[in-house]
């Protein structure tokens, strides 16, 4: 099998672009595997592991882009290399945009171009991200650090530095936030309102803020903290700072705190702050748990309910009928559920709802329960719910909210198993996400066996660029049960499973 490779020196493209190029190359005639990647030592390891470390790229520097093609013959490999060069050297889409985005070579120039900047959104590879965040903090900018693989020591020092200057340091691994009404990174178009959110969970923030919008409410601020903020090492620096801010903020009347349970120490700090609160604070740590009895503290377990309750507390007239899709229970062709998720928090909630219904977890790649932990996320079995946004799936690929190819592949695989009766998917809309998920999903859904039930949770608002109503209609026409509330979708799935099980008894 001929392997051809080439070094492209002195050119830098972001990782998503390179992955999309790789994907396009894989679709070329005769190409079996294709990678366009920056030749860092980590990436070389990845190439080595997949037998793609061709000799030609040995001399590449850490900053060079390398192309490696495995093809059925030398001619196709050479053609793919040419195509890759063309794609890499193509001017960025930006230049064809009607409103071109100004560019700057240095942070100073960027600030000058904007006539003063407020926030720096950083999504470069983790090992470089902390240094850039530090420079931006020096310049007095708030940070949204999207990058992961930033050390916890760096996270701590960045957050300490930020707070000294009264700056936000959201992240690392913070995928979403809404600041003064502006959705950042993966976020939904949500009206401004009275509800403030502090979130250590990305899709949790998206689900709650979208649901609030769909219920007629709005958001004052939605801060992300990154998933590790509640850990002992960070001590909840951003969680507490953001909560303090919202408690003082005159535009915020109701506060939501969401994320995995913070460590005890951090919980204490939160309770202490909330005990002085005159505003209702709704906490959701994604698992059933006891919280202290404080006059303004409410603990809610599901994401949808969190949004409902917040709206209620904010005095928004909620017509519950608006969200509750009602479908007659379909008959399943087989006993098992397969959940294929792109959103980590949604995946976790789905596992929790299953656990609440049936007393045990489904097999998954998320929780710590050894028995139910899948050693290989690809090898789903019996009832399984997997997060395709987990590291094991995303190395060298864009996130499944952007790139549906992995999910479509997995969907087809699950459909081939006659014991699988029902499939559960999340479809995340909003900025950052795939511009038209239905376009990817509908042809795949149409190819599925007619008796296989597919349940979709559609996360988003009518203001999102994908056109939520159109997405909903197209997915429904392709045979899916589409739910606006994630919790309802999960409950519906459990009811289907229960009804199948009781019919068999």
């Amino acid at each position: 099998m001929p392997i051809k490779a080439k070094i492209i020196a002195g050119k830098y493209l972001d990782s998503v672009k390179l992955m999309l190029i790789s994907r396009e190359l894989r679709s070329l005639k005769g190409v079996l595997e294709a990678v366009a990647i920056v030749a860092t030592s980590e990436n070389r390891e990845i190439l080595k592991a997949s037998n793609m470390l061709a000799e030609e790229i040995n001399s590449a520097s850490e900053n060079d882009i390398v192309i490696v093609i495995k093809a059925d013959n030398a001619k196709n490999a050479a053609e793919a290399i040419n195509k890759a060069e063309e794609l890499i050297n193509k001017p960025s889409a930006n230049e064809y945009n009607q409103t071109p985005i100004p560019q700057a070579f240095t942070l100073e120039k960027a600030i000058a171009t904007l006539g003063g900047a407020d926030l720096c959104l950083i999504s470069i590879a983790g090992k470089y991200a902390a240094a850039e965040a530090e420079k931006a903090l020096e310049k007095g900018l708030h940070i949204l650090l999207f990058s992961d693989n930033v050390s916890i020591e760096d996270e701590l020092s960045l957050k300490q530095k930020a707070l000294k200057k009264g700056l936000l340091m959201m992240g690392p691994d913070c995928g979403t936030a809404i600041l003064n009404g502006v959705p950042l990174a993966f976020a939904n178009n949500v009206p401004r309102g009275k509800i403030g959110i502090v979130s250590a969970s990305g899709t949790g923030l998206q689900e709650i803020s979208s649901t609030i919008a769909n219920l007629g409410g709005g958001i004052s601020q939605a801060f992300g903290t990154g998933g590790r903020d509640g850990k002992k090492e960070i001590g909840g620096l951003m969680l507490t700072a953001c909560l303090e801010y919202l408690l003082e903020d005159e535009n915020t009347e109701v506060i939501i705190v969401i994320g995995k349970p913070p460590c005890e120490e951090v919980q204490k700090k939160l309770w202490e702050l909330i005990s002085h609160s005159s505003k209702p604070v709704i906490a959701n740590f994604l698992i059933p748990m006891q919280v202290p009895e404080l006059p303004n503290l409410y603990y809610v377990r599901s994401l949808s309910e969190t949004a409902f309750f917040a709206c209620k507390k904010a005095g928004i007239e909620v017509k519950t009928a608006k969200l509750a899709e009602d479908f007659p229970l379909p008959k399943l062709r087989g006993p098992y559920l397969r959940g294929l998720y792109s959103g980590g928090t949604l995946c976790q909630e789905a596992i929790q709802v299953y656990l609440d219904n049936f007393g045990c977890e489904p097999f998954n790649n998320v929780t710590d329960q050894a028995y139910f932990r899948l050693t290989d996320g690809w090898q789903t079995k019996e009832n399984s719910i997997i997060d395709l946004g987990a590291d094991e799936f995303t190395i060298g690929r864009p996130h499944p909210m952007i790139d549906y190819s992995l999910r479509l592949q997995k969907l087809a695989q699950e459909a081939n198993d006659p014991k699988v009766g029902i499939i559960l998917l999340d479809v995340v809309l909003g900025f950052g996400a795939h511009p038209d998920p239905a376009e990817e999903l509908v042809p795949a859904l149409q190819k599925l066996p007619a008796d296989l039930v597919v349940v979709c949770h559609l996360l988003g608002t009518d203001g999102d660029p994908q056109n939520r109503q159109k997405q909903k209609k197209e997915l429904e026409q392709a045979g899916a049960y589409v739910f606006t509330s994630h919790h309802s979708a999960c409950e519906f799935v459990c009811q289907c499973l229960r009804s199948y099980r009781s019919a068999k008894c």
Partner: protein
Amino acid sequence: MLKLNKDKPKVINIGLEKFAVDLKTQGIDVVNLLWKPPLPVENSYHHKINSLSENIIAPANKKALEIINSGKAVLTGMDVALKVIPGMHKDLILHSGPPISWDRMCGPMRGAIIGALIYEDRAKNAEEAEKLAASGKIEFAPCHEHNCTGPMAGIISPSMPVFIIKNESYGNFTYATQNEGLGKVLRYGAYSEEVISRLKWMEKVLYPVLKRAIEYAGTINIQGLIAQALNMGDELHNRNRAGTSLFIRQIAPAIIKTMTDPEESAAALDFINGNDHFFLNLSMPASKAILDPARNISGSSIVVAMARNGTDFGIQVSGTGNKWFTGTAPVPDALYFPGFTKEDANPDIGDSSITETGGLGGFALAAAPAIVQFVGGTTKEAINYTLSMYNICFGESSLYQIPALDFRGTPLGIDVVKVIQNNIAPVIDTGVAHKNPGVGQVGAGVVKAPFEPFIKAYKTLADMY
């Protein structure tokens, strides 16, 4: 306590471009930072350089830039290399770039040395010349170390006539040969009989005509011609058409006045007129003449020479004396003449990057819309090249201006600190030689300087304090 403005945030995006596009579509002010992975330089060096920056490096650079900007390079005359070039002797051959031994020289440089030895009657043929060159009897040295600059292989042998350029402000001199034109020429490593006989003609006919004319004309202000040529579409490295034309206007009357044989004078004018690159061999030594007085300013991080020998790319920096910092010379991504590809190309070669060092060439690409096909085809790209070079220069030229940038001075004074900290390599306009001796030019385009020499210079500068 967190402090937030009430307005919609203005955002700087570093990384995934889609995030910026999404913000822009919502009407948010956003700038994409053109981020690249940082260069492999340990943080300790950055800390050291940053600590020196304000009190040591900046004042030294200011001084260096003042010296460069106050230079005045004029053509004062011509003579034979052996007579005027300091240190020249009958067994010495000068070449472009940093020092290099015969065994490491690339094809075109060897070809040009073979040609020079035949031209000097030191060898009858290529075989003899190669033997002599390898014997150790011939000494090789960089042009730059003898106050010279040479395009491509940059070969200067003792009998070659040279232009004499003087920096009137500082009294220093520089030298360069007469440009041979395009095609099969010595500087691209060609040494066939046609090449040698042209060199002989240049020595016997062209040189006397020009020498007499320059003597008659007195001095010719080369920088004045350069400044005018920039307003006429030259960047003075890959395009010297306007410069050459302006030179003819200056010299033609003097050629007529000092004429001894009309045929020879006409042939000389014809030759210059037929060679759009004739002026390159004046813009190069003029650039060197204004840069040389800025050498040896303690603490300065300004580059005073960038030069390639076809094997190594070397730089010299004001604050680090005459030490060369080298890295591997890159193979240019260029437009290739029909029938040739990158496979045929020799790594980058020549002292002509002295023009970029002096604020011309790639740094002045925005002035030369006629050659934008070398840089991707649009004037916007050419302008972007020049704009990006402001990010690595300490200042701007007070003499050389770019019409398309509202007559802003060209970026001047390449600052090693900015190259490293902003992670931007100087762009160089370049001709491409065939890798084999005797073939000649196969293309032209732009090339980015390798970072390696700049990293070495940066570290050396840090270690000096």
